[in-house]
C-alpha cells in the first residue's frame, strides 16, 4: 500500500546479495570458518521464554542467533462449524513470516503451507489429542526474523508454548537440523549455510522418551553421513530438551514466587 496516491511504483532492493548465485569457494574447503565463527558441531545459543503474548492461552518466544520466532496457542476452543464430529481434539497449525524476516523484503511470505503442515506433523504425535475432544487447539507462529533453521526453531518454540498453555503432551518436542556442505556436517546452520547446502536433515523428537516424531532428509547423502548426522541431531535434541525444561521450570517458579509476595 503506497502512502502517496497512484499505483505503487516497482522497487528493488539495493543489496547486492541477490545477484551472487555462485557458492563461494569457502564452503567447499575442508577447514573453513562458519559465518558466525562457531565450531561445526556447535549450536547457536538458545534463548527461550514463555508467556510472550498475553492475549493467547499460552505462548513462547525463541531466539536462536538471528532466528526470532513467536508462537501463540489458542484454545482448546470450538472447532469450525464445517468440521465433522470428532472424539479426539484437532490441531491447527499456521506459520507466517513478517515481510522484513528475510534480507529482501517479502521474499518468504508466500510458501508457508508446507512449513505449517510440517509443524503439524511433528507436533501431533506428542500431544494427547483425546484430552480435548470436539475442540481445536490453534498453534500460530510468526517468524519475526529468519536467520536459518526456521522450522526447527518454530517446532521447539511451539511445543514450549503448548506446555505454557497447559495442553497435555507426552513430552516436549525438540527439533534440530544439520546441513551437509561438501565433506562437512554443520549443525544448526544459518541461512547463508542453508543456501549453499548439499543436503539437510532434520529430526524432531521427544527427548526423554527417545522417540522421533519427524525425520526429514533432503539432498545428497551417504549412509554413514546420515548415521553421523542423526547421532548429532539426537544428541543436540536431548540438550535442547533440557534447556526447554529448565525454561518451563523457571517460568513456573517465578510465577509462584510473585504470587506469594
Amino acid at each position, binding site marked *: 500500500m503506497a502512502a502517496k496516491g497512484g499505483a505503487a511504483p*516497482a522497487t528493488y532492493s539495493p543489496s547486492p546479495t541477490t545477484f551472487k548465485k555462485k557458492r563461494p569457494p569457502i564452503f567447499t574447503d575442508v577447514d573453513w570458518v562458519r559465518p558466525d565463527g562457531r565450531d561445526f558441531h556447535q549450536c547457536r545459543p538458545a534463548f527461550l521464554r514463555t508467556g510472550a503474548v498475553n492475549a493467547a492461552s499460552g505462548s513462547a518466544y525463541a531466539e536462536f542467533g538471528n532466528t526470532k520466532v513467536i508462537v501463540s496457542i489458542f484454545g482448546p476452543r470450538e472447532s469450525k462449524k464445517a468440521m465433522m464430529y470428532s472424539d479426539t481434539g484437532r490441531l491447527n497449525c499456521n506459520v507466517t513470516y513478517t515481510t522484513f524476516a528475510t534480507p529482501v523484503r517479502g521474499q518468504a511470505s508466500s510458501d508457508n503451507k508446507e512449513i505449517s503442515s510440517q509443524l503439524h506433523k511433528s507436533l501431533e504425535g506428542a500431544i494427547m489429542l483425546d484430552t480435548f475432544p470436539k475442540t481445536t487447539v490453534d498453534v500460530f507462529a510468526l517468524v519475526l526474523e529468519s536467520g536459518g533453521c526456521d522450522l526447527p526453531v518454530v517446532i521447539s518454540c511451539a511445543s514450549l508454548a503448548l506446555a505454557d498453555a497447559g495442553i497435555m503432551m507426552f513430552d516436549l518436542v525438540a527439533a534440530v537440523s544439520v546441513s551437509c556442505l561438501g565433506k562437512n556436517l554443520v549443525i544448526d546452520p544459518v541461512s547463508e549455510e542453508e543456501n549453499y547446502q548439499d543436503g539437510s536433515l532434520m529430526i524432531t523428537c521427544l527427548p526423554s522418551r527417545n522417540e522421533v516424531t519427524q525425520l526429514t532428509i533432503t539432498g545428497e547423502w551417504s549412509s554413514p553421513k546420515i548415521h553421523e548426522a542423526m547421532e548429532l541431531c539426537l544428541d543436540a535434541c536431548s540438550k535442547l530438551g533440557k534447556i526447554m525444561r529448565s525454561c518451563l521450570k523457571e517460568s513456573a517458579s517465578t510465577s509462584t514466587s*510473585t504470587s506469594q509476595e
Partner: protein
Amino acid sequence: MPYQQHHSLSRATQFDKPNLIMQLFTPRDMKLVIKQPLFSLIDPSSRERKMVGSANGATDLSSEMEVDAFRRLFPLRFHERHLLESVRPDARSLGKARETSLALGAVASADGSALAKIGCTTMLAAIKMEVMTPSKEAPDEGCVAIDFHMPPICSPIVRPGRPAEAAPVASKQLSDTIISSGMIDLKELSLVSGKAAWMAYLDIYCLDADGALFDAALLAAAAAFSHLQIPVVSLNDDGRIVVVSKENGEKPKNKPVNEEKRKLKLRSIPFALTCILHKNYILADPTAEEESIMDTLITIVLDTSCQLVSLYKPGGPALAYESVLQDCIALSRQRVKELQKILNEAILDMDVD
C-alpha cells in the same frame, strides 16, 4: 445491557458449579468486586488473571473465582462499579496510561526497527529501504509505504486466512497521520533526481493486542524512523543503485551518492492517545477488555509542539462535547511529554551502545 447479559451467560457454562451464578447476585459479592483492584495492586503483572486464587491460598479460591465470574457475566456493571471509585480493574486511575517501553533495533534484517510496548499491547515496526524511480510530478521525492498487520498470533479473534477488520483501517489511519504530520521530508529520500529515490517500506506487526493499538503502532513507527540507518549506496554502470560494501577493502569504483544522508531529520514527531468516553468518564489508554465493553473511542494525535495533527472519533453511543474534547486534549498533552521522554531515552540508550 440486556443483550450483554445474555451473551455472557453462554460463556458461564464453562464453570463447574452451576449454583455459582446464583451466588453472584448476593450483595456480598459487590464488596468483593471492590477488592479486586487492591489485589491487582499487589500483583499488577499479566499473570494475575491466570492464577487467580493461588495468591491468598486455597481458602480464598472461591471468592476470587466469583469476582472473575462476575466480571465475565456483568462486564459493564463490573467496570462501572470501579469507575464510581475512580479506579480501574488494573488499579490505574482514569487518566493514567499504562507503563510504556521502547526498544530500538529489534530486527537485525531491517534498516530501522523498534519494539513498542504499552501495557500488554506489543508492536514491532521495521523499515526496509528499497529503490524506485520517482514519478515525473515529483522527481526529487521518495516515498513511504506503511502497512499495519495483525497476524493470528496477536489475538484470539484473528484467524489465519481471515484478516482482522481493524488492520486495514489502522493501516490507512497510520499512513494518513504519518504523512500529514510532516514528520518525514520526502525530499530527503531522493537519491538521484528523476532517476532514483528511496521507497521506505514500514511494516508494523501487532504481536499482542490489548487495546490502544493505534497509539502503540504510531509510537513504534516513530521510533523505527528515529532508528533508521540508510545504507550507503552508489550508482553502478547499469544505472542501478547498489549497496557499497565495506568488506572488500578496496575503494569502490563509483562514488557513493548518499554518504552524508544516512539519517532522516524527523520534524515534529506525532504521538497518539486513545481515550474511552463512557457516561461522563474519560478513560485514557484503554485495555482490550475496556474497549470491548465501552465502545466510544476517541484518538487524538498531537505533535511534539502539542499542535493537533488528527482527531478521530469513529461514532459510538457517547457524544463528544467541547469540554470533553478539551479534557481529552489535556490528557494527550501530558501523554505526549511522557512519550517524548521515553523516545528520547530509547535513542540515547542506542547511541551509548
